[in-house]
């Protein structure tokens, strides 16, 4: 169902910006004309805001040209340029966590529990590796401080908090005193000074008074504070402490980035730069739960923004799916997508059944983050995954990746010596020539060597062949056979990932459409669909910037939770009463975000289980929630216990501030003849031999075009393989739709 929030026609230009490792992507949507444009700029890791501002300048420049000229080649922006609405996702928080460059953070916790962060769940990360040790905690032992206090599971304070002890504990946060004995806030920036404090007391979700008091005093003293009852009022102390610590650790970093960005945006709107004056902008930040939040909120809860890029991708898929469904006009149609984002080093997959799946069991860089995130499963297989022979004589692919440096063998980055000689003789003695999935695709003729990334990067098939020869030799396989094997194994990895998110969770892939985006996915999507009996593959024209695109489509979303541990037989009135504070909070916060009342949707759900179980199912709260629980349990686990005692563990409220979706204009369907886009016929190797097959230029394809397989569609951002027996067509939104033969 497409959202249709009632609001006055939106005339603000909307801009989605996603900072990735390599590129910063921009998607611009003009609501008045329905026009969409995208572009990419190289990311600027030393100062991520630099790429963002250059991109905005470029958009400003374009606007000022439009206002002077009556027409430009790709349509005209007719919006008011008074105000822009920017939705922004970045890897700032992610990198701070993964590279451990966050704020110097302390922990305050209940006496006896300061090591919970280090003990974790006491299991080791790998079973058969003596040397595997868990990720060290973000907060070192000397900064994990304890206070005497205790609350029990009913929320009763067994040991009260003592103010005078708090003062002693706080004194330890200040680190070595400076000569003039300044307060802690003034010595920030010194390596030894604590900037940020995570507060996580036992059972604070049942009674937060102690945590509140500590947080209040710390805030008054000038510390950044993340209190566990604010970010995650749920039981299980390790997961809550970890989430709180991550938030305390990354928030100051995101805050300083966003503050700087806001300042620059203000400056740009007041002082013209190279004659371009940018309008004032409303800035929203993308979260990992698939919604956006205000900058102010993001600065306080950066843990919610850790995986904003991949989340944008999934929301983008959801949006494209809704667009297609609305077009089918079938009352029974039901949104079912598997999203598949294959990049250079890793592949992200997720499942959308009506809505994207949410998880509260995510882990990033070895740190559990138990707030609701879109359930995205990542595996270490991508275009750059390295093929090698293991000790048992099996051909293996990944998880090691050649990365961008040296990259796949065919990039020719094996050193100047190798390139100068250009010959195989020398290279065979260069052991660091890495055979990758990309090399296999190139050798099989599936990537045109002169047309990779729009011809921006020449590839060397002879190097790919040499690298694959080295791997295959021991197995008695030719380079071509090895290449076919590498593809098959890479596909097995990705098939397993898709199975994890579908069949392992009770979904049949046959009921889904595979939505492929990311640079490396187009060559594998059709094979994967066939293996999993997925009938249709869809590749969007916005595939390469789908994350930024998703940000445009994202609603404002806030999640609230509370552990309650109520018996299942308690009345709906009582449950409603317990929901009331969460609903009030959600409603109030959305109004603060500037969402109109008519666009606010509040969803109530319950985490329920049979008494004695220790994992919960999330059930919508309604009159028949008990029956719904039994039913869902049966669906998910194959049995139920009608009449069994039930516990309501958590209440959840999702507050959604609906934002009008971008509306993509439909193109008129033309003839089925795709010959206008035909570039050449080239030999491509399949398992049954070499076939001369047509190559099409993706950017030239028109709605209605039909391409029978086998064929290859080459675009600047990706290459798409259409297999024998499959057929592709271009829909009114310029999506390439692959019909997978049985």
């Amino acid at each position, binding site marked *: 169902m497409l959202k249709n929030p009632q609001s006055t026609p939106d005339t603000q230009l909307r801009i989605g910006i996603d900072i990735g490792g390599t590129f910063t992507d921009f998607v611009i949507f003009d609501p008045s004309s329905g026009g969409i444009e995208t572009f990419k700029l190289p990311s600027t890791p030393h100062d991520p805001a630099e790429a963002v501002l250059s991109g905005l300048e470029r958009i400003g420049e374009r606007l000022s040209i439009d206002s002077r000229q009556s027409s430009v080649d790709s349509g005209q922006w007719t919006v008011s340029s008074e105000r822009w609405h920017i939705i922004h996702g970045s890897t700032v928080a992610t990198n701070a966590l993964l590279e451990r460059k966050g704020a110097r953070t302390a922990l305050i916790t209940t006496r006896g529990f300061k*090591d919970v962060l*280090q003990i974790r*769940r*006491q299991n080791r990360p790998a079973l*058969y590796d*003596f040397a595997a040790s868990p990720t060290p905690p973000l907060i070192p032992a000397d900064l994990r401080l304890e206070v005497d206090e205790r609350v029990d599971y009913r929320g009763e304070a067994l040991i009260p908090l003592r103010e005078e002890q708090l003062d002693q504990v706080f004194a330890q946060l200040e680190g070595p005193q400076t000569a003039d004995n300044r307060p802690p806030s003034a010595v920030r920036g010194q390596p030894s000074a604590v900037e940020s404090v995570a507060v996580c007391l036992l059972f604070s979700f049942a009674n937060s008074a102690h945590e509140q008091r500590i947080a209040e005093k710390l805030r008054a003293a000038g510390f950044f504070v993340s209190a566990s009852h604010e970010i995650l009022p749920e*039981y299980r102390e390790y997961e809550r402490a970890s989430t709180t610590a991550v938030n305390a650790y990354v928030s100051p970093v995101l805050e300083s980035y966003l503050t700087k960005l806001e300042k620059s945006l203000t400056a740009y709107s007041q002082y013209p730069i190279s004659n371009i004056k940018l309008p004032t902008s409303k800035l929203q930040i993308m979260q990992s739960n698939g919604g956006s939040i205000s900058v102010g909120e993001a600065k306080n809860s950066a843990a919610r923004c850790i995986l904003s890029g991949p989340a944008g991708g999934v929301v983008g898929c959801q949006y494209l799916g809704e667009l297609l469904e609305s077009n089918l006009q079938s009352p029974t149609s039901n949104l079912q997508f598997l999203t598949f984002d294959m990049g250079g080093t890793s592949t992200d997959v997720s499942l959308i059944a009506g809505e994207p799946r949410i998880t509260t069991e995510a882990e990033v860089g070895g740190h559990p983050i138990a707030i609701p995130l879109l359930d995205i499963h990542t595996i270490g297989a991508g275009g750059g995954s390295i093929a090698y022979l293991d000790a*048992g004589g099996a051909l293996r692919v990944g998880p090691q990746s050649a990365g961008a440096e040296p990259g796949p063998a065919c990039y020719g980055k094996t050193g100047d010596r190798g390139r100068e000689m250009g010959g195989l003789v020398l290279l065979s003695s260069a052991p660091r020539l890495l055979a990758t999935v990309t090399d296999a695709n190139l050798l099989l003729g599936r990537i045109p060597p002169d047309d990779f990334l729009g011809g921006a990067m020449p590839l060397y098939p002879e190097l790919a062949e040499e690298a694959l020869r080295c791997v295959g030799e021991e197995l008695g396989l030719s380079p071509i056979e090895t290449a076919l094997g590498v593809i098959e194994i890479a596909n097995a990895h990705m098939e397993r990932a898709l199975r994890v998110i579908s069949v392992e969770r009770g979904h049949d892939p046959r009921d889904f459409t595979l939505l492929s985006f990311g640079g490396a996915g187009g060559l594998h999507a059709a094979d994967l669909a066939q293996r999993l009996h997925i009938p249709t593959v869809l590749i969007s024209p916005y595939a390469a910037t789908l994350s930024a695109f998703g940000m445009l489509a994202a609603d404002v979303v806030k999640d609230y939770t509370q552990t309650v541990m109520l018996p299942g037989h308690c009345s709906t009135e009582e449950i409603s009463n317990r929901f009331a504070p969460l609903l009030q909070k959600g409603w109030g916060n959305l109004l603060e975000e500037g969402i109109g009342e008519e666009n606010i949707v509040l969803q109530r759900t319950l985490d329920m289980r*049979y008494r004695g179980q220790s994992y919960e199912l999330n059930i919508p709260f309604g009159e028949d929630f008990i029956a719904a629980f039994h039913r869902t349990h049966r669906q998910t686990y*194959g049995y139920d216990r009608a009449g069994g005692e039930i516990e309501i563990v958590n209440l959840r409220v999702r507050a959604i501030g609906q934002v009008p979706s971008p509306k993509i204009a439909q193109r008129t369907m033309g003839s089925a003849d795709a010959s206008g886009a035909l570039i050449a016929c080239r030999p491509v190797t399949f398992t049954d031999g070499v076939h001369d097959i047509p190559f099409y230029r993706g950017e030239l394809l028109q709605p209605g075009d039909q391409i029978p397989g086998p064929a290859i569609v080459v675009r600047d951002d990706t290459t798409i393989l259409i297999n024998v027996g499959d057929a592709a067509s271009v829909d009114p939104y310029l999506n390439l739709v692959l019909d997978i033969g049985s």
Partner: protein
Amino acid sequence: MFNFPPPAPYDPIRLEVFKHRFAAIAEEMGAVLRKASYSPNIKERRDYSCALFDAQGRMIAQAAHIPVHLGSMPLSVGAAIETFRVFGDPKGLQAGDVIALNDPFRGGTHLPDITLVTPVFIPPHPNPSPKERGTQLFGFVASRAHHADVGGITPGSMPVAREIYQEGLIIPPIKLVSAGETNQAAMDLLLANVRTPEERLGDLKAQIGANQRGMLRLREMVSEHGQAEVNRYMAAMLEYTERMTRRLLKNLPDGEYTFSDYLDDDGIHDQPVLIKVKVKIEGDRAVVDFTGSAPQQKGSVNAVYAITLSAVYYVFRCLIGLDAPNNAGCLTPIEVIAPEGTVVNARHPAAVAGGNVETSQRIVDVLLGALAAVAPERVPAASQGTMNNITIGGIDQREEKPRPFAYYETIGGGMGALPNSDGSSAIHSHMTNTLNTPAEALEYAYPLRVLRYEIRRGSGGEGKYRGGDGIRRDVQVLGEAQVTLLTERRVKPPYGLNGGQPGNTGENILIRGEEEIPLPGKGAIELQAGDILSIRTPGGGGYGAK
């Protein structure tokens, strides 16, 4: 079109592809079991394993869950085959059967580990008549879970007993489900003999669900690739792992290496229990001989052969070092000699609860001690060498209706230092990898309160590289309760290597008011309301002189 080499028995590419498919089936079974099970022991602590077998009962793939289940799962399937060997006969194995067992002397390990084995039948050809449907045995799927209570003299069924009859309900291989129908009499009998029948029922149903999922996936695989092909790659998986083991052994210097160490006691007599090993490496084969180990004991530290096999498997599996598939091929080039009637191959009716959890750790210690001379760059000093099994049971009086409860926990400790790095602290080592029960989950579920859960600093052995530190976990009982301790390394510390110091021994202490009363490593104790059980786990050994 291509010059393919002459048809090999299998090709290295499909091998890798099938490896993923087999492993995915076992993983999916595990996901189903974890999600659907009842008890915190399975869900929170993940004390379970799932595996896939060929028609001969050889293990093809196991989801990497708990090492101590590794070598022993095939013996469960073997016992199921042994008992119901007549296929097709209504008394023999049939489609829709689920065999349950926990008898350590017939395919089990210790009584709390209940294993469910499901034979997978497939139609003999693509278009079977209704009569032929599902008539041919193709393989097995099995799941094993540690059930928090299976009866016996103490709650939690990990007592310090003298014979197996005291340890709980013994289940020989029986059909818990027969041709799709639950054997209600067997189920009723089982549930009548345990302290928490609802939880057991939920967990058993979850295990049945996991097996059903595994069976479904294996059948799908056969219908997609054909029986012959799947069979071929099942065999290929075993050979593949075997090759990896052989390559490992070949690279190790030939010779005989011996090592011995002791269990503190058997819980009944205050005498150390010797475990001795001689590892002989010869080319690409090895003989692991436990001759000379102590005779089986009165107390519960006896290991059945399956446990000893698992420990040997674990050690060599670690030394292979790659993510080899977990299957029976690993042990093919290794002969394991464990004389019957000893603590490493106990005879009926020995008590065995601790063999699985404690003796298995010491078997690993002696093996690693012997192999330290062979692969000095890879073998760590001794880790904590115990799982610190604590069971607390009693009656939960917090609500109107009193309920019996049984809480079982194992506690991590120090990992031994490595030749090039410190050992990890506060973590499970070697034969187990279960998670803790969160204090907040525990206090909702049981009348208990956790007062401390912290690293026991300074307990790791000194050395060039330090052993990891143990844990201190203090639990207060809010009402009367009975505690069973089954812990080790309270007397003899985990050894250091190459001049590294041993780790600290563990301590069990009862805090009653102001008084601290030392408790034995093994035994049952009655606690009063307000008593605090303080468990301090051993540190790992250090490596190298400081």
